């Protein structure tokens, strides 16, 4: 603004100007610090560093991946002592995957090139020195130059077979199960109404045999790799036998090149984005949560956009200006400031219990009666979550649309009317296209808010582990009544409800990273569109 005065005396109050800049500095460092923290911690989850062998004063050794260093709890703050955490894996032998060790006890950390890292289906990772590879035919191979390639091939083979078994278990058996459930309900109904049940019991029998056949098929397939296993020793010299069927991924942390590490990182990221979780959500992927979040957010924006736009057009173009309108506008604005949890309470009380309960009684009374009173819509689910969040983000869309409509120059409106267009034609052909970027900004902001919101969802239908996705191959394909997983809730649940918080930690950071990327991208998109819009209307006046 004003440049410093040109005479020699200093302008009054300059120190205070410097003082105010502290506010900005703190604010900026907070954002930068937080994003940096999440980025570093999030990405390091996928990174495979060298795995040292740690020697202690008492002669014992551990092999594990370094996790973090901290001040030992209860050590005096004036003379802090540190301890280090290692992920040693092999939970079936060590009883815990993570250990804290006192830094003073460590003699040295050495890098042993033979160390092999294994990511497994169960019991956490394993860090072993491999000795023998037993292939699928049961033939043992000693460790030589091609041993690692062989291990990888076996792992690959085992995971292919796992995929096939999973396909049978999830898709085919899932279909049979769903059909069985339906048949059982029909059977109960038929029994109750004293109708003939022969057809249904026969069908149930056929399904039972089908189920058994599929189960057998899955067993047969998994036998193909049952004999393949890896034998090695752990840090304490105990021999460890790990079947290849339980290995997800193998790597040589101390021999890899940087390119290998990057490759491994991408492979882990791929798993994270496209696979289902395992080990109580602490490992594996996040696909159901990502999918659930996306479906819910998109469904929510489909609900909120038309309603919000219509309400805004009404308020801006149709409603009579006056005290009533002012009050309504204030109320709509204030709705944006109402805590999200209140919307959750409303969603549970009204949508779930009142609306859902009524729907169940009107359309699903049979289901209720013959399925142990299991509610269909009378419990939390995708539809109610979307509706609740739509209501919550409604003011965002209304306000954005109203602003966009106000930004359309008066001249354009008048020109359209003067050219003989009707009010609706003006709205449709002039106002809406002109304000579309503004409306889009509002919708994107609403989506960003909806994607990151957790508190109301906890109440109206998000779960920590949903057995099925909200969209699948079973009619009617989009299951609005299903409970689903959500990234934000995943963070809460893993971070605070998980029994093994150490094991959950990497996954929480990775999830946090993903959620932040999603939300920040949505916001940046909205900001970009808005800036373009501003530039476009700067010169546009009649």
């Amino acid at each position, binding site marked *: *603004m*004003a440049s*410093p005065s040109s005479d*020699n005396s*200093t*302008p*009054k*109050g*300059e*120190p*205070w*100007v*410097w*003082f*105010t*800049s*502290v*506010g*900005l*500095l703190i*604010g*900026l460092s907070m*954002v930068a610090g*937080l994003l940096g*923290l999440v980025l570093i911690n999030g990405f390091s989850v996928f990174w495979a560093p060298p795995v040292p062998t740690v020697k202690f004063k008492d002669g014992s050794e551990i092999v594990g991946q370094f996790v973090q260093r901290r001040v030992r709890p209860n050590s*005096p*703050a*004036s*003379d802090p002592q540190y301890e280090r955490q290692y992920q040693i894996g092999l939970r079936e032998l060590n009883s815990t995957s993570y250990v804290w060790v006192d830094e003073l006890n460590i003699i040295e950390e050495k890098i042993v090139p033979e160390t092999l890292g294994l990511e497994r289906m169960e019991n956490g990772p394993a860090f072993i020195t491999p000795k023998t590879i037993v292939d699928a035919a049961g033939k043992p191979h000693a460790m030589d130059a091609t041993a690692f390639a062989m291990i990888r091939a076996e792992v690959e083979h085992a995971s292919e077979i796992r995929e096939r078994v999973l396909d049978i278990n999830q898709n085919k058996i899932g279909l049979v199960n769903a059909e069985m459930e339906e048949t059982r309900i029909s059977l109960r109904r038929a029994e109750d109404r004293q109708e003939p049940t022969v057809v249904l019991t026969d069908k149930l029998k056929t399904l039972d045999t089908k189920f058994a056949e599929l189960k057998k098929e899955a067993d047969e397939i998994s036998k193909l790799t049952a004999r393949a296993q890896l034998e090695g020793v752990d840090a304490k010299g105990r021999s460890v036998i790990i079947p290849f069927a339980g290995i997800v991924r193998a790597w040589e942390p101390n021999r890899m090149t940087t390119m290998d590490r990057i490759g491994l990182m991408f492979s882990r990221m791929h798993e994270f984005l496209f696979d289902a979780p395992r080990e109580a959500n602490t490992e594996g992927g996040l696909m159901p949560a990502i999918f659930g979040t996306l479906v819910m957010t998109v469904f929510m924006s489909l609900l909120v956009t038309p*309603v919000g736009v219509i*309400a805004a*057009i*009404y308020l801006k*173009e149709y409603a009579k200006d006056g005290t009533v309108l002012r009050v309504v506008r*204030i*109320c709509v*604005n*204030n709705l944006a*400031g*109402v*805590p999200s*949890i*209140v919307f959750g*309470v*409303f969603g549970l009380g009204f949508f779930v219990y009142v609306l859902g309960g009524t729907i169940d009684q009107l359309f699903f009374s049979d289901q209720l009666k013959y399925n142990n009173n299991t509610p269909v819509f009378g419990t939390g689910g995708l539809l109610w979550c979307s509706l609740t969040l739509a*209501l919550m983000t*409604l003011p965002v869309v209304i306000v954005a649309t109203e602003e966009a409509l106000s930004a359309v120059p008066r001249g354009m409106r008048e020109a359209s009317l003067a050219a003989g267009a*009707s009010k609706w034609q003006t709205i449709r052909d002039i106002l809406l296209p002109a304000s579309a970027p503004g409306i889009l900004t509002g919708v994107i*902001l609403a989506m960003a*808010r909806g994607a*990151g919101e957790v*508190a109301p969802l906890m109440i109206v239908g998000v779960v920590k582990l949903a057995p099925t996705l909200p969209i699948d191959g079973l009619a009617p394909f989009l299951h609005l009544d299903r409970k689903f997983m959500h990234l*934000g809730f995943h963070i809460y649940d893993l*971070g*605070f409800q998980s029994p093994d918080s150490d094991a959950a930690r990497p996954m929480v950071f990775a999830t*946090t990273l993903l*959620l932040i990327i999603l939300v920040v991208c949505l*916001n940046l998109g909205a*900001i970009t569109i808005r*800036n373009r819009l501003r530039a476009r209307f700067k010169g546009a006046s009649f």
Partner: protein
Amino acid sequence: MEENQSKSTEQLSESRFQVSRSTLLIDSWMGRIIRLGGISVVVAVFGMLGFLVSQIFPLFSKAKVEPLTLVDFTQASSVAWGEDEYGELPFSCDTKGNITFRKAKDGSLVKTWTADFKTTPITLEGQTTPAVSIPVTAIKTYPRDGLVLLGLADGSVRELKISYKITFAKNGIRELEPTVDLQYAGKIGELNGPILEAWSVKGPEGKLYLSRQQKDGHDVITGRRLVERKGLSGKAKVTVSEPFPIAADVTDLERVLVPSTADSILVIRKTGEVRVYDNSENTFSLMQSFKPFGEAKNQTIAAAGFIFGNVSVVFQGNQNEEVVWSLYPQKQADGQLLRRWGKIHDCETLAGVGQGIFPAAGNKCYLSVAGGRMQIRNMTNESIRWEGAAPASPIQQVVFSRNYNRFSVLCEDGKLYRWSITDHHPEASWSTFFGKIWYEGAEAPDYTWQSSSGSDEFEAKYSLVPLIYGTVKGTFYALLFAIPIALLAAIYVSHFLRPEWKNVIKPLMEIMASLPSVVLGFLAGLWLAPLVDTHLIPILCVIAILAPSALLAGYVWSKLPQPVRRRVGAGWEFAYLFPFIVLCAYGAWQMGPLIESTFFTVKDLASGQNISDFREWWRQSTGLSYDARNSLVVGFVMGFAVIPIVFTIAEDALSNVPNSLISGSLALGASRWQTVWTVVVPTAISGILSAIMIGFGRAVGETMIVVMATGNTAVMEANPFNGMRTLSANIAVELPEAAAGETHFRALFLGACCLFALTFIVNTFAEILRQRLRERFKMN
């Protein structure tokens, strides 16, 4: 031009100006649809508030009591009664011990059972004394257990079990068939005289039978225990204890109160004294004696009754007294904390002589009868659920049904008056949610939120006050941290920062606002809280050094010669300040341990050594608790949510101050700081206030951060180093577990309404302030 146009218009055909009908039709229809849609959205918004309020409305409604059909047992001397679980088939006992069952629906007689107990015939020297009937002298029923206890003239008791068999008639109508079985027969005391009163209660140690008899004009109470032990073979073995006297030292006995837990006995004397005998092994010894209406008053006790839970007794006097005494820990003269009886409530009463106190089952309500009126009252919050006229005939026994939906009064004339109760939330009242309440077992009245517990007899406590306190506390710490930063940043960005930087800073702040609160909460709980726990003093040092170091930098800069000052272009101060501040902060961080060891050294209780640890120092020197997840952490992290909102709104208000004012000020020779401080800030003050209010609204409703970054304990302490439980966190944690329609569920709705109202009011004020500001700028 105009003339030409009008001329050509005339020449054109009329149809040229006719709008096609479909266009008009679509236009009017779309107008209608948009109007309808818009209005329904507005209505829905208000409907939401209406719905929330409608959910809490039942909490504050009184009980609805409606008379049901009267059952006339036509026994002139009915003394006790009982009924089945659904209240379909009540029975009454007359003074002779005869039992009559009648249908509640139409009063028709179903069954009568005649008491006929005979002495065993004795054959002595060839002569047989014939069996003689023994008259019944005492009757007591335990309707909810289906028991009738009869005391006989020879000093023995008979316990009868009433059971109901459900049969279905051919037309599908449910019928009840009552049976009366003798369950226990035996003597309690050694005396052979008539039993005047008898009790049978089942405590955890076994069954306890009590009887009152008279010997030489004195009352004698005798007890006998029946202990049933399951042997290895699964067969129950019953051992009967020796009879033991109870309260042998009592004279002028008026009445005896026996709680159903059988662990103590209250003996009331004619003088108004209550003596408490506590059970240990097979003896009852005097624990305490008190006069409920005050030690000075020799007021007789007209009626008394244990409240459900058996730790409180309501005493009713003859002169409008009604007090509640309860067992709770009290400090004795020797400093010990012992559970003793003490007065916890002094209730308003009905006028007139007390006629009875009858407890409900399953909750803390009771029926109080006095002066011809009856009241259903809640013992805990002293609210009167209902009041009505009592039957004219003397009341013998009142029993509430198990699920508190019915109560019936048996009068001496054999009439059973029955009422239905509709009272879904007897424990709810205004004072339950917002007042101090003396709960059973508590040492003093307090504000408590405790909605669930493992025990069945647990009384849920729903005071919202600790939650509101927690909300205000969290908000306070959040605002304490966020407002200075946000406002300083807003002032700097709006009037000192180079304008081209604004386009970077504002989106950054918007991104900060959009960070999901679950992410903030997770980082607060799992990353920041452990860090603050181990490095509290260094962190506080860094925070403390920031402002002085910036002022110092500004001061030093202003003293520098002008050519040097010129180098720092206006609007670049923050960039030059940054390294300096970082340096100062690093220094402060390093100073932390030194400060901690200088000022906060305490003796470690465990090792006895001197250690310097602020956490221990805080615990020892203030006596307050120190939690890792404390208010400071919450305040700091909530800053992420509050700062961007306050910043954006305040910045808007500050940069919208008309340029003419600023130019005027500068032209008159004011420096840029003087202009901002004396012209811009006062002009935009209402906008700044509105920014603070909206920040307040955001902090009040923040849920996930508080859930994850505090311990969620509902304590009322201003201590910055412990946590809190806020309204919003409470809802998030408890609503998934609350059953729809229960008091707990509605209490959480009440919390949501409080939040809604609070934020709505604050935001409305903020909005009005902002509009006023806008109008002011318009005029300029």
